[in-house]
């Protein structure tokens, strides 16, 4: 198979809340390959978002090894992680997370700014917006855009730095199913055209069904139960 973009080994994450320790991840291992579209499913509280935060270099695992695009990142300092996020990860959030005061173009430019790109920044941002079909909305502010359009801006922003992976935590969660499907189509077409690696957290089986592989998480570990057995268990 192709080379692995994500190699996670034995990841654990413990949140300490005073006396109580919450074990959000308990020795989770997985691999994701270049150009793959993977969905992550699992019950609420199973640790999906926690995993995404670690895979997206927003957070440190409590223990375990994580290699992103050939680079060991589990022990990097905050500012080094910031740089990795900037270069290698594109984020798509459930609630879009655009800067409300800035135009679509300025929002998409933001990662390039932090990358220190000065030349051709606007043009790259524009191209990215064209790629998500928003060439007519460059100077609109988020409040002047529909939810689906806002999520497209977010996708353009995630794409603009040509990241190794795009991580989407419930990207369609705030959209109705029709618009959600449009967003999903866009993501899949970007994967087809550019070979972008996609990791999508979702609760929606219809979304998951469109991905090449579904990783199920239960209680902080990957649930390896074969599909047939799970069907039986769920029926029971």
């Amino acid at each position: 198979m192709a080379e692995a973009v994500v190699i996670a080994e034995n990841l654990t994450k413990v949140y300490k809340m005073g006396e109580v320790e919450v074990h959000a991840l308990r020795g989770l291992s997985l691999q994701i390959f270049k150009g793959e579209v993977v969905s992550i499913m699992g019950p609420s509280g199973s640790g999906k978002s926690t995993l995404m935060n670690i895979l997206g270099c927003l957070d440190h695992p409590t223990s375990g090894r994580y290699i992103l695009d050939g680079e060991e990142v589990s022990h990097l300092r905050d500012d080094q992680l910031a740089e990795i996020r900037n270069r290698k990860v594109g984020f798509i959030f459930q609630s879009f997370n655009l800067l409300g005061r800035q135009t679509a173009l300025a929002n998409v430019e933001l990662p390039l700014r932090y990358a220190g790109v000065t030349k051709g920044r606007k043009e790259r941002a524009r191209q990215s917006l064209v790629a998500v079909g928003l060439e007519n909305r460059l100077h609109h502010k988020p409040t002047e855009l529909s939810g689906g359009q806002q999520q497209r801006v977010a996708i353009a922003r995630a794409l603009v730095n040509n990241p190794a992976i795009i991580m989407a935590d419930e990207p369609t969660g705030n959209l109705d199913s029709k618009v959600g499907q449009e967003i999903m189509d866009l993501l899949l077409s970007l994967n087809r055209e550019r070979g972008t690696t996609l990791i999508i957290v979702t609760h929606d089986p219809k979304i998951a069904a469109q991905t090449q592989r579904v990783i199920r998480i239960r209680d902080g570990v990957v649930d390896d139960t074969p599909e047939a057995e799970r069907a039986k268990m769920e029926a029971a």
Partner: protein
Amino acid sequence: MTLFQAFIEALESLNSNKLRSGLTILGIVIGVAAVIAMLAIGRGAQDSITGAISGIGTNLLFVFSGNDQANLRNVRPLTIQDAEAIGDPFLAPHVAAVAPFIQSGNVIVSAGGEQARTSLGGVTPEYFKVRNFRVAEGEEINQEHLLGRASVALLGVEVAEKLFGRREGLVGETVRIEGQPFRVIGVMEEKGGSSFGSQDDVVFIPMTTARTRIIRRSTINRVDLILVQAVSARDVPQAAEEVAAILRERHRTEVGADDFTILSQQDFLQTVDTILGVFTTFLGGIAAISLLVGGIGIMNIMLVSVSERTREIGLRKALGARKRDILIQFLTESSLLSLIGGLIGILLGWVIAYIVGQIAAATGNAFTPAVGLDAILLATITSTIIGLFFGIYPANRAANLEPVEALRYE
């Protein structure tokens, strides 16, 4: 992120909340304006008073009776004879002229139906030379007037205006000083206001006349002040030494127990400078406190802004902002607030100083508040530093937010 981008973003961000930014800036404006105005007014007062003292003449010495440095048993008053001795060119070769002077701060002068309270100076002809006073019309008091104890008077313009309603064509008129008739022989040139009160509100008569008829002293030959003019400004120290030697000899003072005081114009200037310096510092200090309050206002608003924008900070971090980027973003905002406030404050302070100057001029105490370049630099730098200083804590808070926590913040 370059500083320029940070600057533009900070402007946008401040612009998006105009009222709040405006009120925060106002705090700094008031502080800086107060500092600028206070310093300008203090400086103006200093300039006008030192100017008045400098106007007295740089080679003048003032000789008073008494000495607060020494513990004296008996103090001999200064007399006409002392003045004459100082005027002896063999005893005091560096002295060019000597003018003994007696005065009363409060006499009643009347003419026709009008009367005025004014100060009276008993002078010798040298007085006009030493003080560089000239008559606008008529003649000065001369030796004949002095010897003849003539009942003649020179009027300051202010007195002339009060008594006659005009300042010209008064030679030959009669005024009554403390009820006694005097013939007006001239009107002094206008001197303008000074910080010591008007120099035009005065009447001069011959010293002999004053001593015998208006200002009665216990010791008949006593004078209040001896003005000594040195040959040149350079000779002032020698002249002072000579005067001191003469007076020690004549008063038979013990060593180190002079019963007189000699002040040069430099001494005056120094004293006044010291006093006004303290005064200015004090005013400036009070104003600086309001600047501090303005700075606390900035900190307050920046803290609010950081907590409002927690999610935004989380997002920026997710997109690759380093601590430094966030720090710079917020520091730029806070310094911009205070810098804008500082600039407006300088203008406002300038206007206030100007208005105070106008009011002072209108009430006859002409002095010009001076806004110095140093005050402007000081205000600009201080306000920017205040912005940085009070911005550091909030900005640091923002920079140290955990991205995950910040993104989850509602």
